[in-house]
């Protein structure tokens, strides 16, 4: 062998070795990367942060048990600042630069909307976190959504609320509906109008207000002037608080009130509103009642609550965190069952199977929503002021609806629950 040949051979061998190193080969120790954008600042961060914490708890627990497919799991996340315009950039970076294997959405309808076209174009399996009717127009088969709103999200709060109202004696007749000029409340109001017609109630007030309203007393006073039996409110946290305080100041006491008020499920708001919550009948997704104690949920809260307190996020965490955790459980179970990371196979598996999660058995149906909705109606009862511990016990928010999860009876009319 001439010297030149030796040099060529060495160079070629070096290149081959180098190239082998460059080719991305999934090794046993390579983590499975799950990517997401999450509202860690901005308007929805009060929910975004607890959701992320729940996902990280899932990751830690999975890794403790040896990971998925023998590989550790890694969560890569960026702050979407509750700003939908950041979402395309975040997910493009996750997919093209960070090379994540799977994606999960951020929190909420508005942040999922800009992600849908990306997921469809790249044929991704997308797990949505608390989006309301995001897939109704696209009908993308590989989208799934974890909040238990069910196949018809628009009427998911209105049906249980008005069904409960219709069962009461004396039966209420007139309805006032009110909500914020924002996506979720508008959808909920559309659903409410449809359901009101179905039950034959008479609408006496139907108005919306801008989300930045400061004083809600004029609105509540106008509602009171129409003397409704039922008041259905679809609101976000600041307006939920504003409407409730105004109702107490003005003395609005219909026979039944509440429905779709977001925020009253959050720890700090429940704590500061205290006894003012009594009597409200409102939607919820999880409450510490005996009928809601699904396998694994107690253990989840044992892990979540101390960590949440330390990180200064929703300390009880009953609203979103268990569902964010459950979304990851679904993904994890699908990866294990399909023994790989093929987007299509995972989506097919999720679409056709039932999952055991900490929020109960989950099966997905039309448009990737829960095949059967499970929006709860609960009533705040005997709540005292300034005591957070009371909400850890059953009895403060008994489940009134659906029948199979019922854990208490409604106090009717509203004024009786105030006593």
């Amino acid at each position: 062998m001439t010297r030149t040949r030796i040099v060529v051979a060495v160079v070629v061998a070096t290149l081959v070795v180098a190239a082998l190193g460059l080719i991305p080969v999934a090794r046993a120790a390579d983590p499975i990367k799950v990517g997401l954008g999450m509202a860690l600042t901005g308007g929805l961060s009060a929910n975004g942060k607890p959701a992320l914490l729940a996902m990280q708890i899932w990751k830690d627990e999975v890794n403790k048990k040896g990971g998925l497919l023998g590989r550790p799991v890694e969560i890569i996340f960026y702050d979407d600042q509750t700003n939908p315009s950041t979402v395309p950039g975040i997910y493009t970076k996750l997919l093209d630069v960070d090379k994540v294997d799977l994606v999960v959405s951020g929190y909420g309808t508005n942040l999922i909307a800009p992600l849908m076209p990306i997921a469809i174009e790249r044929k991704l399996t997308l797990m949505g976190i608390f989006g309301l009717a995001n897939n109704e127009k696209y009908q993308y088969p590989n989208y799934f959504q974890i909040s238990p709103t069910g196949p018809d999200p628009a009427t998911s709060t209105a049906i249980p609320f008005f069904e409960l109202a219709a069962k009461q004696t004396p039966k209420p007749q007139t309805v006032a509906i009110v909500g914020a000029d924002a996506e979720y409340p508008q959808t909920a109001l559309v659903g409410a109008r449809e359901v009101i017609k179905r039950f034959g109630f008479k609408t006496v007030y139907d108005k919306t207000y801008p989300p930045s309203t400061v004083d809600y007393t004029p609105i509540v006073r106008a509602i009171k002037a129409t003397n409704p039996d039922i008041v259905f409110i679809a609101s976000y946290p600041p307006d939920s608080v504003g409407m409730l305080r105004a109702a107490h100041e003005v003395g609005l006491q219909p026979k039944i009130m509440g429905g779709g008020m977001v925020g009253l499920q959050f720890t700090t708001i429940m704590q500061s509103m205290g006894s003012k919550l009594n009597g409200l009948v409102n939607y919820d997704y999880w409450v510490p009642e005996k009928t809601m104690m699904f396998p694994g949920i107690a253990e989840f809260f044992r892990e979540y609550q101390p960590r949440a307190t330390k990180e200064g996020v929703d300390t009880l965490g009953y609203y979103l965190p268990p569902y964010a955790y459950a979304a990851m459980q679904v993904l994890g179970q699908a990866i294990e069952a399909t023994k790989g990371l093929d987007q299509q196979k995972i989506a097919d598996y999720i679409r056709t199977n039932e999952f055991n999660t900490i929020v109960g058995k989950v099966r997905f149906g039309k448009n990737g929503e829960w095949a059967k909705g499970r929006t709860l109606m609960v009533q705040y009862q005997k709540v005292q002021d300034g005591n957070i511990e009371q909400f850890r016990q059953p009895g403060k928010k008994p489940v009134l609806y659906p029948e199979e999860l019922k854990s208490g009876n409604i106090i009717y009319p509203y004024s009786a629950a105030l006593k």
Partner: protein
Amino acid sequence: MFSWDLLANAVVAGLLLGGFYAAVSLGISLIFGLLDIANIAQPAFVILGSYAAYVLHEGYGMDPILTGVLFTPVFYLIGALVYRVYYASFERRGDEALRGLVFFFGVLFIIEVSLSLKYGVDYRLVQTGYLSRSIELGGVGVAFRYLVPCVVGVAMTAGLYLFLGRTFYGRAIMAVSQDQAALRLMGADPIHIKTIAFGVGIAAASLAGALLISIAPVIPSTDRDYIGRMFAITVLGGMGSIGGTLVAAVILGVVESLMATFFGPSWSLAVSFGILLAALAVRPAGLFGR
């Protein structure tokens, strides 16, 4: 649905809301209206005031309004410092127009993110016994959580009005807003005077913040809801007119309340800003502008 009872309630609610709006807008009226500094970070200082009230209420049970008053010197010093940095970095070099705006945007985000990191992003609210009460006067309901902010707002307006009109430093601030060079010729240091004015404007945010968190729950990003209203009130009242700020705030409050009661609350903001546009078309300097 019209009734005299509803009308009276709507007007009173609007007046009370107006008093609160005045409290929130006074700082901007001073800093933007008189000094011509586009301090869009002002609402973030208001939220900082809210958190000060919240922290002392939660930790030591202190009254939010009292906290607002006690913190005014601290906010004054912060304001003075912010102005000095702004002056040294932008105003002195004549860069204030656009870069100054970016500077205050930066301050706004720094305050917001610092609050998020320190106190999390949950909704915070302060409730005290007397703020939860309401009284009925001849069929008109008055909620204390609006009455107290209104009274404080009117008192703040009166205080600032007297300060600007009757005291040496107040008159100097009025002078610096008219002709900085002339003030310098009189032997006074306009930068020193502007530092005082800016400090007073930020100090007002301490009290305004305490009032805000008594009315509605607050998160670090709540400031963004108030930017539009604060500047609209200042411009409608007339740049630099403290009395005008109160009048404009009351007009906006009453209009919002009347719209919410009789025509549907969705229209309230649109009509408020419609009035602003109409007023500016007739009087470009604002209602009481010079």
